[in-house]
């Protein structure tokens, strides 16, 4: 890529970087991306063999270990599906490419605006200002305190929402144990939902797995620092080091705000706006990076694909065996072929 004039890559450079469909990480070159995918997403957990694609791993698991691969490992929650065949950058659905690019652009301009806001210089447009653009924003203690207070307020609000039974922005998919309300009509009139026993904790049985981590769309406390990530090091960094991502700032809209003005949006506003978004890809990435698994430990394979009409699907649930009182064995027992011959 040659030596850069500025400490920050320009947006075209960012857009040109190969990136991984499964985890949105980007790489210096395609080779690194492919070896990343083999090691992180297509590696057999039984024998360590690295395959080229998820399909290849699935066949391998089937043939060698007689097991079913149900999802792509280490992938973002809505990218674990096996139905999409990915190799390097090949096979990424067009709308995902668009989403990715938009995100890069948004993050780029947000980061740029943030830098300018920090330096007090007006946004230079695309021509590239000569101001101290390399300078990374350093927050004053007051700013940090204010941001922390806002973050806490948000978390508290989300907790309150969760306590009220509101679904919180845990990125679950339809079949994860995230359903509290049965999609079925009650099996019989007045069939009661099991009331928690007296003194029982709010998490009654019959409910899903409790999330392993506090629910809420905002990043965990540890991840808050991600908002202030230092900029990507200049390309003079040792080539052996895995390329770092540029800082991800986001405003949640998925696109640069119209008439974007660098000075009108504080980081806190951006953060606040972003945290209102429940299922933002950046959010998922951040959770993944913080080692936080979305609360879907038992998400079965069939539900890993992209889906937009989750709610509609839930209504469509069909039980193969629906009798709530008589067991299949009792019905079998009534069949003529099993009738007891009294002697």
């Amino acid at each position: 890529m040659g030596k850069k004039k500025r400490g920050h890559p320009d947006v075209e450079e960012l857009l040109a970087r190969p990136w991984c469909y499964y985890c949105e990480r980007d790489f210096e070159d395609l080779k690194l991306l492919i070896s990343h995918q083999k090691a992180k997403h297509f590696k057999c957990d039984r024998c360590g063999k690295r395959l080229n694609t998820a399909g290849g791993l699935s066949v391998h698991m089937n043939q060698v270990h007689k097991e079913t691969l149900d999802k792509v490992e280490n992938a973002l929650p809505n990218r674990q599906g096996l139905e999409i065949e990915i190799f390097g950058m090949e096979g990424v659905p067009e709308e995902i490419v668009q989403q990715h690019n938009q995100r890069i652009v948004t993050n780029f301009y947000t980061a740029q605006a943030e830098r300018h806001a920090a330096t007090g210089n007006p946004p230079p447009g695309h021509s590239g200002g000569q101001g101290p653009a390399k300078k990374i924003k350093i927050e004053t203690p007051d700013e940090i305190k204010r941001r922390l207070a806002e973050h806490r307020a948000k978390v508290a609000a989300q907790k309150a929402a969760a306590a009220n039974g509101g679904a919180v922005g845990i990125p679950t998919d339809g079949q994860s144990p995230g359903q509290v309300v049965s999609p079925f009509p009650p099996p019989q009139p007045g069939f009661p939902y099991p009331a928690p026993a007296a003194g029982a904790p709010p998490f009654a049985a019959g409910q899903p797995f409790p999330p392993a981590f506090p629910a809420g769309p905002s990043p965990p406390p540890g991840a808050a620092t991600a908002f202030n990530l230092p900029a990507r090091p200049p390309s003079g960094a040792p080539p052996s080091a895995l390329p770092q991502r540029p800082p991800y700032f986001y405003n949640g809209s998925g696109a640069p705000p119209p008439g974007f003005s660098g000075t009108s949006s504080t980081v806190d506003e951006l953060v606040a706006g972003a945290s209102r978004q429940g299922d933002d890809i950046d959010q998922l990435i951040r959770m993944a990076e913080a080692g936080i698994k979305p609360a879907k430990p038992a998400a079965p394979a069939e539900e890993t694909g992209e889906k937009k009409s989750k709610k509609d699907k839930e209504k469509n649930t069909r039980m193969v065996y629906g009798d709530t009182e008589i067991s299949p064995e009792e019905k079998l027992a009534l069949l003529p072929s099993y009738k007891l011959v009294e002697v």
Partner: protein
Amino acid sequence: MAPSTQFEVSQPPTDVVGTVVFAPNSNKLLVPSWDKSVYLYEVGDSAEDAKLVNSYEYRAPILDACFGADDNEAFTAGLDREVTRIDLSTGEKTTLSKHSEPVRCVVYSPEHRLLISASWDGTLHIHNLAAPDQSPVTVALPGKPHAMAASPSKLVVAMTARLVHIYDLPSIATALSNSSSEAAAASIQPWQQRESSLKFLTRAVACMPNDAGYATSSIEGRVAVEWFEDTAESQARKYAFKCHRQTAPEEEGGGDIVYPVNALTFHPVYGTFASGGGDGTVALWDAEAKRRMRQYQKFPDSVAALGFSRDGKYLAICVCAGFETGMENYDGKGKTKLFLRELGETEAKGKGAK
């Protein structure tokens, strides 16, 4: 890591199977069937080396079976309402008791030398095998039993109307040894009465080998795990999750197809558990970490029964024609298959809760 292997066992039962159970001290495998026979297989040095060693004919379908004090003693639950003891070496059968309706389950507690049968007549028969002359004690249940399992100290009975009774086995043993049958029957009360954690009909119950709790499954693609200890803390740990579901094709309107979870069994060493469903899959779960560890290659039909060998090395998997609502035309004949999976060393080992 040694690759695990899986083989289909030849000469499977010829009709529906509800139970596969390994012997306490060997790799003998007992499989009762609705074809009115009970089959005994033996696994040799590998899963490939499994063969039928004997089969025992009955006059009625056998719904359940368990081993007794040793590898040659077994008990069966018959559609003919009889609870039978069988000597597997000689084939000699003895009727232990007769219910007024078919017998759904039999469970043997080696710790207390108790054999418990559960019948659709809404009773348990408790046989004190330490005193063979004593007639069994009848305990009335508030509903029809659908599934039953024992841990070292507890007996869990899942019934209609989502009722679950937990009995304390040491207390039962004491009652049986100290009093007459009538007095014992009167004194045997459930240690705990619970409502099922699942909203639909219970299909299977399995107890944790460490005596701490149990898992239940229902016809509605769901499994619940809970603990015996009746403290708020223990009860707060219980959870349930969806499983054994499939996405319906869009042309059929999409949505989820929800299968019954027919089988549950805990790994005797690691305490993880396997579930088998009408979707033809078997999944391994880490009860502590609350995650699915593995899902095995889809089987050709509904998974009806699962059982680990006592050392945890083998998993027996029985598949049958699946049960569906409206079973007037059900025919399971010739569709039963028996598979044996040899597990890799750490295949069923959980990662723990951390």
